[in-house]
């Protein structure tokens, strides 16, 4: 369509003269609108959108800290509006079998993972993933805590009081309910296997609280969030049970908090275009300021914000995981000869 204007010769046909000014005007208008012929314009968004046809997120069905079911629709609509590409959200009920493998394999671009989940993925695929943003509490805290709890009417007020008593842990895969507390106790020179009369697995944070309340164990590790040991916590696993009337108010005493365990992080594939990574990071980080109801719908408390993250924030988690794997290998190596015999 630009060919007629390449010809510098005047038109031979007088009839064509009458068309030329209109055609020229129309095309000049088009050129002006598209930016051609004026100041050059970059359009990087066309570039990354050519490569990323849609953005795929993996979120859990339930917020692990608050227990609230996650409403994905407002999140999905917001992200589509901001990024200008279709957004698909995969909801997983199991963080280990779904979210971690989905982002490790590249089936999704972004996943909201617990700290331990990020470390797991990072060890699988290295720098192909990065913590785009970490969630931050209103006090600016990057993490939550493992809390050692006892019955409030018990005589136990410190770890020293629990020598020879029974202890429940949450799950052998739980960072706050097992890995972090075991690490913290060993750092204090305590071998949990010999210090306590019995160490059992409760199966969940609230089950651990129930086990203590029901006298099945003298103490248990559970979880506290949105605060610090100094400021106090807004969310605790036993507080949620008190609020629901499962246990009486004030039935549980928290005697030691260890942490922080890194909060959840939005983890993104780094093999996606940089412009897409920047846009997704900015869009997510703006939510608490632009549309805080979206975060509330995801079970996050008001005042939660999203801050830049890096591997250094998870260094303790990497160490915990390394120690846990080394421990498992040592146990397996020790067991093999016995099994062979």
């Amino acid at each position, binding site marked *: *369509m630009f060919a*007629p204007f390449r010809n510098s010769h005047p038109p031979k046909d007088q009839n*064509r003269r009458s*068309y*030329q000014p*209109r*055609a020229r005007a*129309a*095309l000049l*208008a*088009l050129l002006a*609108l*598209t*930016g051609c012929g004026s*100041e*050059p*314009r*970059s*359009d*990087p*968004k066309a*570039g990354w959108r050519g490569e990323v046809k849609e953005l795929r997120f993996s979120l859990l069905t339930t917020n692990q800290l608050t227990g609230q079911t996650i409403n994905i629709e407002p999140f999905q609509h917001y992200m589509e509006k*901001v990024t*200008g590409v279709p957004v698909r959200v995969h909801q997983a009920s199991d963080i280990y079998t779904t979210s971690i493998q989905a982002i490790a394999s590249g089936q999704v671009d972004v996943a909201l993972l617990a700290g331990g989940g990020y470390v797991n993925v990072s060890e699988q695929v290295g720098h192909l993933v990065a913590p785009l*943003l970490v969630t*931050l*509490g*209103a*006090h*600016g805290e990057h993490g939550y805590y493992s809390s050692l709890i006892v019955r409030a009417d018990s005589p136990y007020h410190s770890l020293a009081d629990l020598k020879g008593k029974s202890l429940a842990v949450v799950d052998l895969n739980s960072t706050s309910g097992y890995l972090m507390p075991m690490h913290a106790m060993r750092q204090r020179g305590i071998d949990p296997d010999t210090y306590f009369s019995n160490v059992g697995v409760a199966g969940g944070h609230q089950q651990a609280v129930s086990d203590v309340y029901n006298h099945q164990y003298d103490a248990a590790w559970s979880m506290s969030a*949105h605060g610090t040991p100094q*400021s106090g916590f*807004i*969310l605790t696993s036993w*507080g949620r049970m*008190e*609020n629901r009337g499962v246990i009486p108010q004030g039935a549980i005493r928290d005697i030691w908090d260890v942490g922080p365990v890194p909060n959840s992080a939005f983890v993104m594939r780094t093999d996606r275009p*940089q*412009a897409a*990574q*920047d*846009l*997704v*990071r*900015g*869009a997510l*980080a*703006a939510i608490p*300021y*632009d549309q*805080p109801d979206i975060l*509330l719908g995801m079970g996050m*408390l*008001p*005042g*939660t*914000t999203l*801050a*830049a993250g*890096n591997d250094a924030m998870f260094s303790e988690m990497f160490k915990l995981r390394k120690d846990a794997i080394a421990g498992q290998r040592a146990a397996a190596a020790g067991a093999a000869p016995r099994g062979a015999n």
Partner: protein
Amino acid sequence: MRRIVLLASLVAASVTGRASAEAPMPSVLHVGYQAPATAACAAPGAHTPPALAALAKHLSGRLQMAVQLCPFADPAAAATALAQGRVDFAKLTPAAWPAAKGKGRPILTVRPEGRLPRSPILAIVKTSVGRLDAAAIAQRRVIAIKQDPLYYDAARAAVATRGGGAIAGTTTPLAGSFNAAIGALAAGKADVALMPGEQWQAGCSADKPLCAPYLVAWQDRPVADSAWVLRAGLPDELRYRLIGIFLPLHLENAQAYAGASGGVKGVFEPTEAAALDGGTGQ
């Protein structure tokens, strides 16, 4: 030729429609900075301070567009330039902001090391009291929950900086707990309970009947000390990408961070549109 005119008109109409939905990315981003004297915008050169040159290079690489630096003697000059479209992105203070209000949007602020995020603070009152502005809150009997940087200092700063300056000259009594604060309202011992949003949400989800006779009379964050403002009319995508670039700046490029923060140790965080609106009592 008729077909050319028709086709051109159709394409033009299509482009116009898209342009009205989203402005095109600029080819050059004009970034303001504080300098001894106001001068014309220019590409970084030999005399550009290294931190600002690093910032310009970082932005240019990430946005894939040219960056020019625009020196301003003070935030007021930057605000005027932003309102006149001579600069796209500049750091303004609450005092300078009125000159640019409506012509730009605050998008980023520095949170200095050791300071709390700018969390939303709520003023809780009996439903019969209704909505209040910050100035009215400062005149009432206000109670806080506990002596804590968020629950006390930030709560009072939010009221003081949004038009309730009178609260600064008073001492706010402490209730001791969420339930005690609500109890003080119920007993008529206080008119307003200040608390962070997280406390109201957690406290009321624990005991909905307890909260039923009360409402949120006002909520806001403390006014930002300063904020980077993006000129109006630029595409939203640029705003989100700038946020996405600035947030990890302290981790990725210390020199560029120093240029953007003016040497303040801390981190960038996003802001709400009203981050610089002091005294509005929103």
